[in-house]
């Protein structure tokens, strides 16, 4: 339909509407901060924000990958397991095989890429929905993490903690890396052939194929990328814990997906943004931090979290719809 009462879509118009999206999500965020500040005397403090900032890198990094996956109309339920496996492998390499820290980190990242690539390849080769393949991966990779660690938390110690140490004015290197990845991710999505192909494939795979773009390597690359980022998240988490826990990241896939969707990325593919995903991550992080400070009971935490997820998505959808006409 050609219904558009709105002014014609010029470049500056597009930019303005993008900013409006950010403002909408930022408003939700500010509202939450204000709410918790009235509920707790200590919430509105530098310490709280530094704590939040240093908590989110793992979630943010995974959400960047998941944004690409959702845009390409896929889903990846295995990120939590990959996170655990990457940390487990790195820790085992350091402790049992006496590898150097960088080599062990590379091993962990490599394992992540491999998991993602296998997931992508199986899904592409047999034309299976990534949902079910990644559900299988979730189990297999978790099993592998147990095997590697012999089902025990591996304590590594300070050798690996630098990623999580306070760095620039109390902000950790991990956070800086996460922010950089968000920026790079957004640029890749909007300004590269790869990014545009991802959007195109998520919208209309057949059209892309007919235009001579082979969707298969791109799909595989998206999953491999997500595997890599999940593995990086695993290293960040291990650095914070100074240990690798084979149970780490259970159920985190749903939190990651919630963050991405709250940020306005479509589960149907073809539409999304890494920057708004970051807002989604912040919303979830503030919510968790706030509820913990307030000392909410477990049932009420559950209820509030569920309502906030749905409400945030509703707000975002309504605002988009109003603008979209």
């Amino acid at each position, binding site marked *: *339909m*050609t*219904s558009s*009462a709105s002014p014609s*879509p*010029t*470049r500056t118009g597009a930019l303005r509407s993008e900013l409006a999206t950010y403002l909408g999500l930022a408003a939700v965020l500010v509202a939450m901060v204000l709410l918790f500040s009235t509920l707790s005397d200590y919430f509105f403090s530098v310490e709280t924000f530094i704590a939040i900032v240093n908590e989110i890198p793992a979630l943010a990094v995974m959400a960047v990958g998941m944004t690409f996956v959702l845009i390409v109309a896929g889903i990846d339920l295995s990120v939590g397991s990959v996170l655990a496996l990457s940390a487990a492998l790195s820790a085992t390499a350091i402790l049992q095989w006496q590898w150097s820290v960088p080599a062990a980190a590379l091993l962990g990242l490599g394992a992540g890429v491999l998991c993602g690539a296998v997931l992508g390849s199986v899904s592409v080769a047999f034309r299976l929905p990534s949902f079910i393949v990644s559900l299988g991966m979730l189990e297999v990779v978790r099993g592998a993490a147990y095997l590697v660690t012999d089902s025990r938390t591996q304590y590594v110690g300070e050798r690996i903690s630098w990623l999580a140490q306070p760095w620039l004015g109390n902000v950790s290197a991990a956070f800086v890396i996460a922010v950089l990845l968000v920026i790079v991710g957004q640029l890749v999505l909007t300004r590269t052939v790869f990014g545009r192909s991802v959007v195109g494939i998520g919208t*209309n795979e057949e*059209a892309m194929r*007919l235009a001579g773009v082979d969707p298969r390597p791109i799909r595989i690359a998206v999953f491999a990328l997500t595997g890599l980022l999940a593995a990086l998240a695993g290293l960040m988490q291990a650095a914070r814990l100074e240990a690798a826990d084979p149970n780490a990241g259970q159920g985190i896939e749903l939190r990651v997906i919630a963050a991405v969707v709250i940020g306005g990325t479509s589960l149907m593919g073809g539409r999304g943004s890494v920057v708004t995903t970051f807002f989604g991550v912040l919303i979830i992080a503030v919510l968790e931090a706030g509820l913990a400070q307030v000392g909410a009971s477990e049932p009420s935490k559950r209820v509030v979290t569920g309502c906030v997820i749905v409400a945030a998505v509703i707000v975002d959808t309504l605002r988009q719809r109003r603008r979209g006409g």
Partner: protein
Amino acid sequence: MERTPLLTLEGIGKDYAATVLDGVSLSLQRGEVLALTGENGAGKSTLSKIVCGLVNPTRGRMTLDGQAYAPVSRRDAERQGVRMVLQELGLVPTLTVAENLLLGALPHTAGWLRRGEMAQRARAQLARIGLEDLDPWTPVSRLGIGHQQMVEIARNLHDDTRVLMLDEPTAMLTPRETDRLFEQVAQLVAAGVSIVYVSHRLEELQRIAHRVAVLRDGRLVDVLPMQGLREEELVERMIGRTLVEDNGRGRRPAGPVRLRVQGLARGKVVRPTSLELHGGEILGLAGLVGSGRTELLRLIYGADQPDAGSVELLPIDGGPARRWRNPVQAVKAGIGLVSEDRKAEGLLLPQSIRVNTTLSDLGAVSARGWLKPARESGLVQQLVKTLRVRCTDEEQPVAALSGGNQQKVIFARWLHRNCEVLLLDEPTRGVDIGARADLYSQLERMAAEGRALLVVSSDLRELMALCDRIGVMSGGRLVRTFERGQWTEQSLLAAAFSAAVPAEDATLSEPA
């Protein structure tokens, strides 16, 4: 050298479950426009796709410029200068016009897009087809379907093109845009490009084609020079029978008013519009692309919500007027809509003809919620026979039917519902001559039964043949209504252009 053909096909055949193409041999000269025509499902699109590497032939050989030619992909064919505008739109709506135009060959440095070059190249290509005003960074989803078709065409206008296949490119275009396209075709031909042009609009073929190839049931029946070929002859070759066209009839007697539209409006697309539709008449709606016809039908049907105005149905027995706010209520009130985009809005593609047909009234084939399979099959078989749908049987998935036959299935759906008012949006888009005649006679029969029909079409000749009155929309307004006998092609066109030229068109951006 001038005599050797640019492209030759020898004994090309294609089998799916059934044989779709069989032993087609053709040659294409440099700088020639070869029209390809035939009924729905004759194999035109399949043949074109084989030439441009989208479909692998089961049998046969091709040569291009004397060399053996067997493209393995569309990319491969394009490298050799063979391009195709597909019958079905192949654009990516979430990407911008520029990205769509250059899709598959985006200019980049180490993966990063060169946006300046993209904009420049996109503008150059758009200018060729008269869209220099379009901002290349507009997402395609904001364009109307007509403009999308133009972008699709622009995408294939490259300097290195040697053979261009156009598969029903004008199906969604209005005369103005069609003229633009034909200018471009003439330029290409002058530059020595060979063109294969698929269309059901015979008058178009007369205008631009040098020769015409006729396919019937997957076989090549004839290749004739266009010069001096009479339309009736062509039609006879296509369908194997002659067609009687009666243009001289008078206006049907109009019954009482059945549908009353008052001041219906939505944004800039439809300005307040009023009209009355009588029982037993066919009212046509003509206009340029983007003139608001589809939107008007959707507003009437309740598929979109109007800003102002009202619609009501006056029952035949004089009962109280009925109103509705959404399609579900509209259908209950006795209205049906044949939508413009049959794939996206009309059909359940993987489902059978049977399922697609009875959708409009499942109550008629069920009792207390349980379906009556035998009853349903019987009814559908009847309709399939009446409409001459080409299919193996009523259990065939509609995805496996040709475009025209898919349209007949949607038509069958509303025959099944037996609705009193039918809104038809481009009902014969992509429908062949033979099937069109079938559809026309159905429409006329329905009108004779006292039903009221509102038909949107970009094919003026179709409207002139079919309608009792023709309304013309321009810039979102119903600018004039002609009675049968009052109109000429010229007067209709003049009305269509009457709003400020260029047409006030919300889908175009303002010049930068």
